[in-house]
């Protein structure tokens, strides 16, 4: 259980970052994982709670106290086994997860949470370094064929789980590379793409077949899937972005974040692009205060934008939440991302009224302040202001999955346009259409990677049960 009194002896140590001026020079990851000793001391802080709130704080129920203890005892090999028992891709979550586990950590009540994510990061990096991550090739074949649409975290998790119990899994990806949002939504400086490539290799060894440039409804007929496979999992994510229909929206330079970010990833991956949109020398305004917004900020800074501003419609959250009333839940509080540290003007309670431009090119943005009263937004009179803007990136979240493919399959949808399917009971994850399942953002709407992995795993079990009658796959 770590060390009984460890939490009183050691402080939380955050992972070291390469300083902004250095890291802005390239697109490499800049977060350095903990040293063995640091990880050991961080593990020692874990109290092995009678009720580990972290375990349920974590959507995939990572068995955090156990691997904390193993790291404290420097038993890294067993630590990765325990970690992998709940999480197919710790290298993704160890880098990208906002760590709701740490919000739920018991030490977070009146102290600093155990650095759970940093320990996870250290474990998986060590595991790859030591070549402990091996394909788990099934010893038997079921002769059941499964198609998975989408190769984001949900699709990948489902694919890996199902392959390991002997099913023949084919993953259809519409883009030119595997990974979905992980590949093109997350900048390389947050996660280098070799991590995905390694996993893909592992999964191929485990029997998963990956097909790229396969857009269902475009160049692949959906019947091809329903006819040729025993089960289909829709894991295409929720890619339909929220728009900002104000005057001037049509101007050049006003675009969705997802029209901007992937291009840089492709360049880093070695593609030669003719029309990459660069923020270089521009006044950039990012609209939306979430993670995608942050990624736009970080990328713009690496492009050497002249200035980067970020607007958020909601008011600035408090720096510290009232833990008494919030813990162990995910708190609403001011979060400053690494991208913000690299330089950015942030503003809250701002609504965008219009974009102004010259020659079809955006030049500025007209905004106003708002107040929130009883959950309703009221514009503050006479608070209009304008800001120079050469590039406006809309990062206000995603509304729903792309609808076209869903309509082709004919699955029922919920009010928000997501695929309708429950997560519990014997009909878990199955859609209104026979043998068609859905998992991840396509079912639940925009969410975290870790939720996508959870759904992928649980959906895999549901599919396995559907095909075999019973399943030993863990939920």
């Amino acid at each position, binding site marked *: 259980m770590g060390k009984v009194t460890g939490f009183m002896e050691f402080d939380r140590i955050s992972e070291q970052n390469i300083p902004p001026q250095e890291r802005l020079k390239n697109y490499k990851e800049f977060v350095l994982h903990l040293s063995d000793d640091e990880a050991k001391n961080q593990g020692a802080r874990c109290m092995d709670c009678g009720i580990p709130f972290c375990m349920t704080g974590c959507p995939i129920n990572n068995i955090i106290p156990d691997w904390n203890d193993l790291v404290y005892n420097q038993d890294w090999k067993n630590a990765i086994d325990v970690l992998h028992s709940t999480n197919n891709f710790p290298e993704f979550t160890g880098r990208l997860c906002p760590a709701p586990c740490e919000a739920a950590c018991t030490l977070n009540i009146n102290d600093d949470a155990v650095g759970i994510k940093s320990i996870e990061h250290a474990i998986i990096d060590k595991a790859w370094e030591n070549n402990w991550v091996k394909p788990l090739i099934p010893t038997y074949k079921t002769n059941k064929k499964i198609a998975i649409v989408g190769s984001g975290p949900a699709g990948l998790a489902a694919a890996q789980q199902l392959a390991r119990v002997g099913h023949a899994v084919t993953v259809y990806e519409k883009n030119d590379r595997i990974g979905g949002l992980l590949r093109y939504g997350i900048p390389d400086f947050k996660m280098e793409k070799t991590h995905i490539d390694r996993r893909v290799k592992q999964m191929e060894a485990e029997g998963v077949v990956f097909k790229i440039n396969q857009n269902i409804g475009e160049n692949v007929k959906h019947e091809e899937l329903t006819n040729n496979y025993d089960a289909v999992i829709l894991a295409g994510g929720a890619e339909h972005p929220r728009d900002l229909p104000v005057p001037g929206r049509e101007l050049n330079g006003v675009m969705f974040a997802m029209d901007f970010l992937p291009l840089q990833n492709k360049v880093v991956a070695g593609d030669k692009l003719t029309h990459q949109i660069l923020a270089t020398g521009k006044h950039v305004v990012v609209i939306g205060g979430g993670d995608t917004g942050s990624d736009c900020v970080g990328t713009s800074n690496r492009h050497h934008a002249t200035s980067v501003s970020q607007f958020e419609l909601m008011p600035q959250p408090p720096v510290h939440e009232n833990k008494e009333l919030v813990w162990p839940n995910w708190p609403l509080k001011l979060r400053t991302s690494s991208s913000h540290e690299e330089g950015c003007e942030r503003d809250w309670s701002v609504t965008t009224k219009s974009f102004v431009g010259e020659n079809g090119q955006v030049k500025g943005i007209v905004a106003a302040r708002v107040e929130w009263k009883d959950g309703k937004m009221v514009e503050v009179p006479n608070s209009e202001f304008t800001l120079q803007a050469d590039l406006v990136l809309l990062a206000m979240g995603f509304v729903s999955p792309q609808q076209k493919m869903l309509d082709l399959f004919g699955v029922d949808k919920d009010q928000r346009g997501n695929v309708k399917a429950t997560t519990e009971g014997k009909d878990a994850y199955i859609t209104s259409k026979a043998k068609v399942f859905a998992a991840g953002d396509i079912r639940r709407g925009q969410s975290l990677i870790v939720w996508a992995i959870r759904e992928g795993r649980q959906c895999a079990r549901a599919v396995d049960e559907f095909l075999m009658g019973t399943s*030993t796959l863990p939920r």
Partner: protein
Amino acid sequence: MTQFERPEQQGLYNPKNEHDACGVGFVANIHGTKSHTIVAQGLQILTNLTHRGATGYDPKLGDGAGILIQMPDGLIRDEAKKLSIDLPVSGQYACGLIFLPQSNTYRTQCEKIITDIIHEEGQTFLAWRDVPTNNSNIAEAAKAVEPKIKQVIVGQGKDIQDQNHFERKLFVIRKRIEHSVKKLGLDDPVQFYIPSLSSRTIVYKGMLLANEVDTYYPDLKDARVTSALALVHQRFSTNTFPAWDLAHPFRMIAHNGEINTVQGNVNWMRARHESMQSALLGDDLEKLWPLIVEGQSDSACFDNCLELLVAGGYSLPHAMMMLIPEAWSGNPMMDEDRRAFYEYHAALMEPWDGPAAVAFTDGRMIGATLDRNGLRPARYLMTDDGLVMMASEMGVLQFPEEKIIKKWRLQPGKMLLIDMEKGRIIDDEEVKKELATHKPYRQWIDSSRYFLGDFPKTNSKAELKETLLDTQQSFGYTQEDIKFILAPMIANGEENAGSMGNDAALPVLSKKPKLIYNYFKQLFAQVTNPPIDPIREELVMSLVTFIGPKPNLLAVEETKPTTRLETSQPVLTLDDLTQLKNISKLTKDAYKSLVLDITYDVKGLKKDDAYGMKKVIDTLRQDALKAVKDGYNILILSDRNQSKNRMAIPALLATSATHQHLVREGLRTNTGLVVDTGSAREVHHFALLGGYGAEAICPWLAYESMNAMTTDHALAHKNFIKSIGKGLYKVMSKMGISTYQSYCGAQIFEAVGLNSQLINTYFKGTVTNIEGIGIEEIAEETMRIHQSAFGSDPVLANALDAGGEYAFRVRGEEHMWTPDSIAKLQHATRTNQYTTYKEYAALINNQTKRQMTLRGLFKFKTINQAIALDEVEPAKEIVKRFVTGAMSLGSISTEAHTTLAIAMNRIGGKSNTGEGGEDAKRFLTLDKDNTLANVIGLHLIESDIKLKKGDSLRSRIKQVASGRFGVTAEYLSSADQIQIKMAQGAKPGEGGQLPGHKVSPYIAKLRFSVPGVGLISPPPHHDIYSIEDLAQLIHDLKNANPSASISVKLVSETGVGTVAAGVAKAKSDHIVIAGHDGGTGASPISSLKHAGTPWEIGLAETQQTLVLNRLRGRVIVQVDGQMKTGRDVVIGALLGADEFGFATAPLVVQGCIMMRKCHLNTCPVGVATQDPALRKRFTGQPEHVVNYFFFVAEEVRELMSSLGIRKFNDLIGRADLLDTQEGILHWKIHGLDFSKIFFLPNIEKEVSRRNTEVQSHGLEHALDNALIKLSKPALEKREKVSINLPITNTNRTVGTMLSHEIAKRFGHEGLPQDTIQITLNGSAGQSFAAFLAQGISMELIGEGNDYVAKGLCGGRVVIKPPKAFKAKSHENIIVGNTVMYGATTGESYFSGVAGERFCVRNSGASAVVEGVGNHGCEYMTGGTVVVLGNTGQNFAAGMSGGVAYVYDEDGLFAKRCNPSMVSLEKVETQQAQPKVPQHLNQPDEVILKMLIEKHMKYTESPRAKFILDNWDKTRTQFIKVMPNEYKRALNELHASLTKEAA
């Protein structure tokens, strides 16, 4: 049912659970001179022991009393003459007393049987005599079942050789009559019963009050009735049902105590059937079976067995020594012959174990013996004219002091014997020496014994059939078995500790497959007998086990002893097992072993055939039986062949099935039974295997598992065996059983969730109250475990299952406290959001998906129309029924402790101090707004709390637990309720320990101890070894605070209802029934999980039994144990509770997040820790707790409105409003049957179902009323008074009410010393000067009984013999047992010897005494004790503070002292002793001399004078007993003071 019937088993009430205890005594003329005076004196003793009995709802209804005397030849001869019968000479006729049915027809039938059998056995029926009786003054209930009482007179037959032969024949006749009448199956309220049938003795007894025996039987007043002995007994039963046959004396004994192992003893007797042969009884032996009739009391069973041994040819003392041997294995002082005697007989007969003072007689000898631990009082005296009087207390019969030549007591394991034919007293030493040297026992043992450990080592391996992981999985191992069970045992040599309560799903409700072990709950002693402290009193414990056949019990004249195979403890190594397999070679065929494989092929097994398990067990039984018949005398049940293709019958099931089958066939004692199993790994498993018949157990897989965990395998195995041994001690001792031999087969368990069919087939005799799964589901679970082990589950591919029993784990066992429920409760109470509370309550209450508790499967029956919410009693009234749990300041922080008190006082509920005293600063109500730190002290509070005017920090409930920490007159006076903690849900039957690092200066101050010195709470209250003792303590506490109600806390187990009835009769005002799942600051994890039952069962049993006994109205019943929501409260009320205790939930409200680290002092939220840094993190507020209780009450109101009930009182006991929730899909629960829980006793409407009246405590009779009156000037004006009065043994608890008056007025400081001087003459009753306050000096000229000066808190007590008493004071007893228990301050001087356990848990008082019994100064934490004479054994066990000075005249003290926690030092001269650090900051010589001088001054003791007169020499004979911990603390204190000074 009418008022007068003895109820049959119904609902949860089972007459088998009845317990009794009593007052016992005898008077005898050594020379055998008969007189009527002796009879009258016997009856006088009875009258004066009345207070040791009890009455039921009717004050005339006692529990029975009786007398045994020698055959009154004068009377019988005259009366026979009236019937025209000339009796033969005395000794050649017998006269028996017979209870006959009321119905004429039945009576005639019985009488015919009697005369026929007398004739058939070759004796002469002479006459029937109608025994005159006068029932005018007995209770109606007793009258209703009053038998027709006759005497049968039998003449000796022609073939009879001597009187012993005649007696044997009479015994056979009686047994035959009993069997024949039983076969008639009489349907009569009166039980046919033969109190006695003998040529030597006769018994008169019945459902009588102690002082009414001779009124009922005018014979006894008849001057023609003469006897040289009178043995009397007064019973205190836990029930109120009249039972004429249960009164004592029995034919040979009167027993005060309880035989804890009776189930095992009775089984073993039955098991001996086939192997028993007797030269003396010959063919008659067979006529005696069944020897022990079912449904009798433990005492009656014991009497049956004793009769058999005596009839079989053993002398009476010999037989007694076999049945109740003294502790011989751990006694360094015992001589070799005697040890050999006991050792030899150990193989013949397992001890009948339990607290016992047994007086016995065959009409020629009379004697008494005491159990090995001295747990019952028995004092005696002798006069110069040949009278011996023995009784539970002194003062019951007056003799002129000058005629008394010896006053002594029965010592643990010792015997007093009077041989009236020889005309002398034979003392223990002589009796036993004669018996011990009668035969060459040592030589016999040496020539016939094999020690398992002596055989050559073979380096055996377990030889797994599959991988370790798969094998572990196939036996249901989880990660927790490794982490929480094995690893701590390997590391520390003892079982792991845990904290907080058990909120996991009951095994029968769990969705995970469980091992069969988990369905059994350990039973434990509460009230009717004490648990033992197996650590501090290890000398009485033994794990020795014999493997193999038991010798013929009745081979009295044997000259060639049977071989024996012995091992020192029952956990076998792999080597041991190999040797057992090869035993025939190793012992030259003395033993022949056979391995019975309990695994079987899984191929083709079908679910609907219970996976073949039934058949396999049947085969196993046949095989075992055949093996025994074929001459195999060691059977080894082994599951080592378990593999993918072979599955084992659960070892426990196989063991019990085989054991019970062999018992039934009467062949069990022809063989040994050994279990070789991979399943056993924790203490509970071994306890169960032993309890159901295994003589030894080899846990082969545990060894293999440990090998994989460590490098030093030998050490790991050794520590594991040690841990299991310690654990077994704990499990045995919590039931008061001290030897494994008696525990083996004793079945000290009950089942929760197993059906009767399974139990009756394989575990017969075990209680199971709610039915549950059967063999089909057991097989299914076993199969599931097997399949998952060898299946393809990826989670189990590389790892064990997570478990989740001990800590919450995702994918582990379900728990009620989850992250969600805790968060919701905290958020709700902090924001006062009832809607959030309701979300929380739904998580707990709705168990349709996650089943965890029995109540989760209940639903409400809507019989009435729902009513509007506002018609229901307001919440502010309901919250008054709520209390918080007994959590001491020590287990939780000052902040948490006071917050609870403030909150409870705000709502009019009650908080509970727990065991640990209370700061007097908390007693006042605040007259203005303030803060906690201001009230308690700024340096004592780490997290301040705002207080309002009118707030009170006082805990209205003051707990009195076994440690008696901080229990003073002032503490008790500040209570509204005083709670006696008999047991605790988390660890019933066990004590506790507050480690030194938790004893802060503040805690030390409140507990009157030294900071940094650890504190031990003993497992038993040393003043409660029986129900009558409890009555005494209740009386004491009532005296200590007449306005407080007295509460007794019990834990739910089978029989708790009957105990509760006894507690109600003992005049408790209030009873708490705690569930097994209650919380703790620290407890061994097997106790957390495996002892006690859910409160739903215990509460229902209590309610039903109290109602049946018509006692419910007299008491308030409270329930606690994982009480969380309003629904819990309503279910508790419907099952019979008036009040409700909450502990964990209010802690969670205060910030507790179930870390389960209380025992480590690292609570990160400042709740359960003493660390100041962590206490700073405490954020609880009284308002939050108040919010919580109002939420609960509001939920209660909503339920009441839906049930159509306006008043809470109308809910209580309405179990008819409960039903079983249907439609829950769970394969294991369909067999559960709650009908016994929902049962309503069919009894008149007028009988109360809830608390409606108050107990009458009889304080108006107390001598203290006079003392208080006479002390008025002192109490009102602080003037000195002196008082002089006589006293007798019926004046109990003298001085306590007066002390209460002082404490109430003057607090702990009291009055100046000697303000009230009281001199009393005579024999004082029990608890003389209990809780005596500062300012009172009590001088008693005469003698004291038990519990003198218990809880002494400032007063002075002097007891000295009267001038007329001529014997030497240091050779005579002057006070009884457990004197000065829990004393805190004050001083005592006793000119004489004290009984056992002198100064137990003394924490600050000083005492001088001239000798003490066993266990002197046990658990002492402070104070000074001077012993001017011999001590008994085990002196200073568990002593962590204070100093004792012992005058070691014979130089043997070191052998009698328990050295584990103390060092023995010399008493240096004042000059020679280093200045620092010193006890009380004075040199030893000064302290010692001063105390002896005072002793001389107050008592005029010649002993003191002698010692002082020869001081230079006598000083060097003193030994100073210095606790090591205390010494360390003194040194540290000195060092820190020096540092400060520098």
